[in-house]
């Protein structure tokens, strides 16, 4: 099994480079583009001197490489910094939050907030169970919908199953997730009252967002599955299997499905991973679902650097790990892929 070890070491080393690169990219981007998070944090009423002092305190006036090295040094110890805006109790502490009368109290609140800002890890950890549940349900719905249809279409090229898959795929991929979310909220929750949504008060709140995710992911899997099965059917071992006396069902189940699972695995590593992450962000935001995605979108809109960075590292690491696992699994199915 020296191969597995070599493979893991090589790929993990590559993965670390990628995650570092991602972090640096986001890190630089956040600091190069105009707009001062301290200004947003403290609100427009604060004097420039206070803003500067606060920025100094947060280390935002040092050079970018300096900040980056400091950040990485802490990050490897598990310290990803603290959110600028989210308090320990989970309540957002932005200046924008207090629009509408409480302007005078802002300064006091900010001073308190300084003491109790939530750690990035905590922000992520609070949301992660919800996000994992949503992603898991989304994937489950996707597979339930896409796998039978994709297999049927692949085995029956140019027949009605294929056309149905083509049609469903084309329509589903044309439904923007945020719009679909709105329509589902309107029809299922508001009008029909069949399923709850908006926020999270129980398991039922996961279903609609998960459906939105599934509609976004299913076309990719349907297409990929039907294509790779159709391709596998062209292989020599299929026509060869017939004359060798293998039953058709056995050819399909043991050989065609096995071989077409490799492109599917790759799809999962590259496309599905990315789409799932992106989809989670948007659906969580629209459904006001309390996961990591919602926190991230809010963090980005508020320029909450530490949270964005933390989530970016997390997302990149998940994708990198998913890809390594997928490639390793592929090499076990097809030994030629030993890369």
């Amino acid at each position, binding site marked *: 099994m020296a191969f597995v070890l070599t493979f893991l070491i090589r790929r993990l080393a590559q993965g670390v480079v*990628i995650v570092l690169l991602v972090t640096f990219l986001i890190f630089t*981007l956040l600091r190069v583009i105009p707009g001062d998070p301290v200004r947003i944090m403290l609100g427009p009423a604060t004097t420039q001197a206070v803003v500067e002092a606060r920025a100094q305190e947060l280390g935002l006036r040092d050079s970018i490489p300096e900040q980056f090295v400091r950040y990485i040094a802490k990050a490897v110890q598990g310290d990803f910094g603290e959110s600028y805006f989210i308090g320990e109790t989970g309540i957002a502490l932005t200046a924008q939050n207090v629009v509408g009368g409480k302007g005078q109290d802002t300064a006091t609140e900010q001073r308190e907030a300084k003491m109790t800002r939530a750690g990035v890890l905590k922000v992520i950890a609070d949301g992660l169970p919800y996000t994992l549940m949503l992603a898991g349900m989304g994937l489950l719905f996707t597979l339930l919908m896409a796998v039978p249809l994709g297999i049927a279409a692949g085995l029956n090229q140019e027949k009605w199953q294929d056309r149905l898959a083509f049609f469903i795929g084309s329509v589903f991929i044309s439904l923007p997730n*945020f719009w679909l979310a709105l329509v589902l909220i309107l029809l299922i929750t508001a009008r029909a009252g069949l399923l709850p949504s908006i926020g999270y008060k129980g398991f039922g709140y996961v279903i609609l967002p998960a459906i939105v995710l599934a509609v976004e992911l299913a076309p990719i899997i349907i297409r990929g599955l039907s294509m790779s099965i159709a391709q596998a059917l062209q292989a020599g071992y299929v026509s060869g299997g017939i004359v060798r006396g293998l039953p058709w069902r056995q050819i399909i189940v043991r050989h065609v499905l096995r071989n077409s699972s490799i492109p599917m695995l790759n799809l999962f590593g590259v496309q599905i991973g*990315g789409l799932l992450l992106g989809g989670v962000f948007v659906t969580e935001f629209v459904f006001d679902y309390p996961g990591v995605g919602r926190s991230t979108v809010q963090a*980005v809109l508020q320029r909450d650097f530490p949270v*964005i960075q933390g989530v*970016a590292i997390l997302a990149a690491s998940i994708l*990198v790990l998913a890809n390594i696992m997928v490639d390793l699994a592929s090499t076990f199915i097809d030994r030629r892929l030993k890369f």
Partner: protein
Amino acid sequence: MAAETGTSSPARGRGESVTRRMFRLAWEMTSFKIGLGVFTLLVGAAIIWPELSPYDPMKISVRERFLPPIFLEGGTWAHLAGTDQLGRDLFVRSLVGLRNGLGIAAAAVAIMFVIGCALGVISGYWGRWVDIILMRITDAQLSIPVIVLAITILSVSRPNPFTVTAVLVLAGWPIYARVVRSIALAEREREYVRGAKILGASDLRIATLMISPNILPPIAFVAVLDIARMMIFEALFGFLGIGIQPPTPTFGNIIADGYKYLVNSWWIPTMPGVFLILTLISINLMGASLERARNKLFKGIV
């Protein structure tokens, strides 16, 4: 042996018209014709109707607020898709939104296509350190969800058509670079490249004159499908409030503005969505048909 050249697909040997045959094949499919028909209709309307219509997409009309679309009770011929909370005609606004969205998406795809293809050919054909660096960058970029990247930039950079396009290009180019790289890698090993080298052709000549024409068939459908994908992103940015800002209508900001009226005047957020989806379906039908045509061609069925 390491020196052995790669296998070739059956469609290749028969020559140049792979691109043309792919389009002809696609054209023979009903789905492609439907897609093209709907697309032409929508784009035609988007070009002509806002100019002819008596309604200004930005003009507020207090008396005509919350008018439902024609197929609901109280709808009028004057406002086919109804009006919004400020009395603006949703039909005209949606068509202008279509113009903006499609324009930005098409421009973004064109730019990312050129950039991605150029980098892909360089990376695949010349390889070495360029390849290593480029592939690591695409790896990294594909590891950041597009939305995080996009909203990070847009949330602070005063969104306008140019920044939105730039962000889309930034998000989209790695895929082209990777696909084209793999094509260039395969083409590099082919006999005709060896033949050209023996004749004394320079690398630049081989890359531009001989390899580049082979890029289009496998990637044309990606570009078409991507126009739809980019339109969705553009709309999403608008919806999150980080796209082109109101009052200029885009699908995203119309839907975002109308979101509040979802329950009582549901057509305000949904009608623009219907136009958007019609456009997306038409584009996706064309793209998917092209893809099927390509698959058929490369399987050698025809």
